[in-house]
């Protein structure tokens, strides 16, 4: 994986300490435990000629050269060299020039390069002591004091002078507005880790108490496992709290887990449960505000802002996707088009005519949109859309590459589940390397899916969340069944909130089809209702022009088989209707001959997932 590599280009004239500065960056990064590659220089090294050097660091780095237009940071020591080097900077990258330093404050003018490193150091996940050590070992002792002072001067900068961002080559909107590279909404993503842990502990203690005092199920569970809210003295104590499962929401349907009286609840949403009944989630006014805030932070982390026009193609309604994205995008100040799902031709017309710059939908729906646009003779590369916010179903890196290549947009992953808040539990940043969890509100843990034992950061296991601030419906150690790992190492974007790896699979049999959760047990209950006994069946998932399709193959049992065509067609109609009612999605039922479905150890293989197979 190269997604965590930080690219730095430093440029200037011979004699300005360009190479020396790159040596220092490289050493500081090595000291911080990164792999580093450095290209010595390209250009002329003699005094007065233009010089530049590339430094790349990350968990692993293959090539020493920063490809054109991919520098995250461009440091130009000579003001006249800015324009000739600008093309090196990526869209949204950070440009550091002498204008950020008050040169009069430098003891020695030659330390300008080190002052610029001070500015750079503010943006990198490398501790100050590593920088100081790198400066000491690389520079002459004679000028050490002057250099350390210069470094401190740059490091003490407070954002004002920081410049960035050339407009994207094909974008019609400036990529970054006056707010600079970091949107103000993103500030909580960068809070110092100690402060974050302190806030988390306070909130955990609060929510454990609220759950215990207001929700009978939590009180019984906590009493049963001999833990009281007062026992939560550190964040590690979260592991003493009992788990909550989806079945608990079903068993307390509809309002049994609410910790707020209904008059304080301003919103209800619902998502499919494991059987016929949905699960219900509730929000107070404060909860909606938190949700709005995290969604706004997600949008900000993709570089979106008030100048963007966001087409929200998530479904509006009981599903949390539509309204969740809507509130966040509005709070960001963007222009929101609440188009909801479906009607693909209209989606493309709106995208083109309204000058849409970002779209929210499931990744599979966007693939469908790409194909439809091609049919309509529209080239998405030519449109102003530049960001896709894709979630509500797991997708792969391969799908991202395909989407980005075929549409020219940047495709970002967003994570969430209704039980915790809806979309906005976590989101990728511009590095596209794991999803940052908004852990000031949703405390993540990884546990062994079999034993429930807590696992350390980095280990793969089941993702578990405790909501730290949700009033109406606190979730204590909710088992998501999503398999991933927490990435504790700092992200190159500088956010302090931890990341999870992209969700690759689940520990249960839940299927996600066009953003809708479907359990085989729902299908069984529908089959059973129509046929009285459970026939052998198989769920076959395919992908047709980007859209997930679900076929249910049902063996015709002797009990229901008829020699009359219309009786079988009636059976077919009833089965289709029953399954569509319980799952809420459009499906195809295929009647198949008895004893023809594949069986293993007497049981039919329930799910055949062909979505990632090449079309046949």
């Amino acid at each position, binding site marked *: 994986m190269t997604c965590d590599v930080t690219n730095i280009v430093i440029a200037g004239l011979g004699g300005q300490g360009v190479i020396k500065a790159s040596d220092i960056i490289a050493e500081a990064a090595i000291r911080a435990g990164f792999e580093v590659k450095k290209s010595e220089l390209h250009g002329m090294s003699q005094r007065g000629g233009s010089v530049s050097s590339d430094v790349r660091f990350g968990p692993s780095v293959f090539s020493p050269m920063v490809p054109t237009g991919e520098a995250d940071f461009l440091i130009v020591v000579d003001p006249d060299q800015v324009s000739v080097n600008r093309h090196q900077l990526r869209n949204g990258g950070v440009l550091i020039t002498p204008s950020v330093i008050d040169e009069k404050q430098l003891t020695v003018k030659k330390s300008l390069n080190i002052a610029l490193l001070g500015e750079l150091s503010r943006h990198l996940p490398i501790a100050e002591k590593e920088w100081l050590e790198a400066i000491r070992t690389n520079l002459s002792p004679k000028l050490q004091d002057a250099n350390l002072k210069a470094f401190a001067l740059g490091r003490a900068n407070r954002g004002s002078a920081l410049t960035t961002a050339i407009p994207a080559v094909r974008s019609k909107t400036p990529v970054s507005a006056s707010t600079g590279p970091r949107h103000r909404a993103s500030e909580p993503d960068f809070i110092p880790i100690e402060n974050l842990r302190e806030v988390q502990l306070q909130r955990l203690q609060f929510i454990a108490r609220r759950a215990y005092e207001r929700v009978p199920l939590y009180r019984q569970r906590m009493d049963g496992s001999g833990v009281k809210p007062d026992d939560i003295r550190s964040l590690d104590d979260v592991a003493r709290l009992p788990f909550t499962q989806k079945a608990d929401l079903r068993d307390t349907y509809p309002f049994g887990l609410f910790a707020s009286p209904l008059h304080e609840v301003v919103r209800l949403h619902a998502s499919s449960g494991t059987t016929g009944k949905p699960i219900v989630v509730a929000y107070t006014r404060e909860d909606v505000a938190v949700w709005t805030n995290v969604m706004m932070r997600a949008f900000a982390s993709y570089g979106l802002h008030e100048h963007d026009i966001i087409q929200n193609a998530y479904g509006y309604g009981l599903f949390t996707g539509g309204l969740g994205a809507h509130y966040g995008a509005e709070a960001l100040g963007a222009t929101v088009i609440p188009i909801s799902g479906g009607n693909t031709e209209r989606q493309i017309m709106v995208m083109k005519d309204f000058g849409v710059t970002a779209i929210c939908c499931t990744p599979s729906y966007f693939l469908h949109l790409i194909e439809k646009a091609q049919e309509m003779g529209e080239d998405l590369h030519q449109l102003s859309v530049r960001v896709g916010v894709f979630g509500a179903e797991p997708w792969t890196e391969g799908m991202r590459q395909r989407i980005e290549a075929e549409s020219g947009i940047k495709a970002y992953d967003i994570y969430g589940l209704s039980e915790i808040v809806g979309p906005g539990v976590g989101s990728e940043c511009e590095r596209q390397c794991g999803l940052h969890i908004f852990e000031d509100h949703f405390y993540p843990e990884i546990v062994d899916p079999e034993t429930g034992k807590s696992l350390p950061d980095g280990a793969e296991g089941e993702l578990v969340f405790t909501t730290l601030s949700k009033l109406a419906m606190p979730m204590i150690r909710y088992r998501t069944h999503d398999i991933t790992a927490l990435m504790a190492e700092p992200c190159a974007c500088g956010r302090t909130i931890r990341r999870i790896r992209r969700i690759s699979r689940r520990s249960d049999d839940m299927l996600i089809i066009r953003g809708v959760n479907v359990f085989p047990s729902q299908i069984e209950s529908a089959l059973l209702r129509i046929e009285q006994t459970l026939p052998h069946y198989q769920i076959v998932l395919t992908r047709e022009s980007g859209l997930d399709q679900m076929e249910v193959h049902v063996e015709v049992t002797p009990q229901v*088989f*008829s*020699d009359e065509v*219309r009786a*079988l067609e009636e059976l077919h109609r009833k089965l289709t209707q029953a399954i569509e009612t319980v799952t809420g999605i459009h499906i195809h039922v295929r009647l198949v*001959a008895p004893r*023809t479905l594949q069986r293993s150890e007497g049981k039919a293989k329930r799910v055949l997932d062909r979505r990632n197979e090449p079309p046949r």
Partner: protein
Amino acid sequence: MKLHQLSLFLENRPGELRPPIQALADAGINILTLSLADTEQFGILRLIVRDWQKAKTVLERAGIVAKVTEVVAVEVPDRPGGLAALLGIFDQAKLNIEYMYAFSEKRGDKASMVFRVADPDTALRALQASGINVDL
């Protein structure tokens, strides 16, 4: 007369029809007549054989489920208006015909046809009352 008809469920795709027919062939069972109904997804094969119980066992051994239904077999005069007159009897008795098909063999100037109705006994009585030979 009442006959026992075997019905088989088949998917509507190549290669589905042959296995049951081959199984009967291998057991030396002759098919007197058959009809194949088709829809977009599936088909229903209906068979008349002399020894339906043996045929059913043979098919089941081959992993094929066959449903047994009672149908009515009737002689129909093989001339213009023969079938029309017969159908008049069904109409008068308000009997709905789900489907029908003919035997491939005929005796003299009579053809034989198979009728599927909800209640074969009522159909037989109505036909007999109108002087139709129902004993083939």
